[in-house]
């Protein structure tokens, strides 16, 4: 174990972290919207 310095963190890891955070919220948001649509569509079908 040795300290590797901040270079990897700042140049490589940070952009990955930011992309992952944005990515995960985006995908979750899309799934949430899909569930809303599914619920709406099937409820309407049931009412008919």
């Amino acid at each position, binding site marked *: *174990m040795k300290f590797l310095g901040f270079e990897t963190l700042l140049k490589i890891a940070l952009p990955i972290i930011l992309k992952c955070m944005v990515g995960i919220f985006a995908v*979750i948001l899309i799934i949430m919207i899909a569930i809303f649509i599914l619920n709406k569509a099937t409820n309407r079908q049931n009412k008919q």
Partner: protein
Amino acid sequence: MEQIQQFIIDVFGNVSNIEWKPVVMWIIGGILIFLAIKKNMEPTLLLPMGFGAILVNLPESGAVETIKTLFEAGISNELFPLLLFIGIGAMIDFEPLLTNPKLMIFGAAAQFGIFLTFGLACLFFPINDAASIGIIGAADGPTSIFVANTLNSNYMGAIMVAAYSYMALVPVVQPPIIKMMTTKKERLIRMNYTGTKVSKTTKILFPIVVTVITGIFAPDSVALIGFLMFGNLIRECGVLNSLSETAQNALANLITILLGLTVSFKMQAADFLTADTLLILGLGLFAFIFDTVGGVLIAKIMNIFSKNKINPMIGACGISAFPMSARVVHKMGLAEDNQNFLLMHSIGVNVSGQIASVIAGGLLLKLVLPLVG
């Protein structure tokens, strides 16, 4: 005399091969077995792992080759974690999530610890190991194995032990963090459960839709999410009940037995007993703590803008340690107010954490794998 000497060497010669490091591994194996049996902590995994740790650290152990064969047959090619995901998918009821989809946001927020730990681990480890260590925060054994293995991490044993031990320690790790992050008033917030009926069509379409969406955005996670959702589809379709039961019981149990024992291949003293292992265990705990913080924090932020207040404790269930985390929060709610039933909400958040942790793993793989080559 010479014959007696030779006899002693033949029979007891292996005793002289005992070194202190493997003995420490026997003790670690013993502790894992003790925690599994006496404390009932993830016994299905800690017990096989503990026994395996003893098995592979016996001097001149003849079991190493057999376990290596199992490792190559089931973990190197990611077969065991994926098959286990079919069983897990068949066990999960997504209804609490489908009735209140906005709970999914907590699942995403509670992956915060993964990324923070990944950044921290980059200070000490190469990027592939750092990402594998970060994913301990997924609180999801199969995902941890899948990511660590795909990224060819050198620390698979330590990562597995950390992931499963902390999952077992959720009832110990989470409550103090949740209490520290919330006020008494917040912990008393009651949440009504509407219990809206979810149609069968929605339940059937949900696993297919999630697989397609996740597959498009995080293609590296499609194996994990696909097998998880396949298991769920078997459960929800209504025409494969015997397959669903087999996946939930026989398949999941069989793979769990083999998985725990096989992982011990990476628990041989020479690789396991290093300062790196201690650091990985510390980073794993850090990941769990900040996952919890992330989930609770986003609930508090949402409360600023929302009319219907959310009990911020349920945010902590976004880590995917299913269903322990949901149970912990439900019990904490009842301890504050014996009429405050948070179970359905916390289960909803918990299952969304299961999905979000796989997506987090897939995204990390997508971005880190090209750098590793």
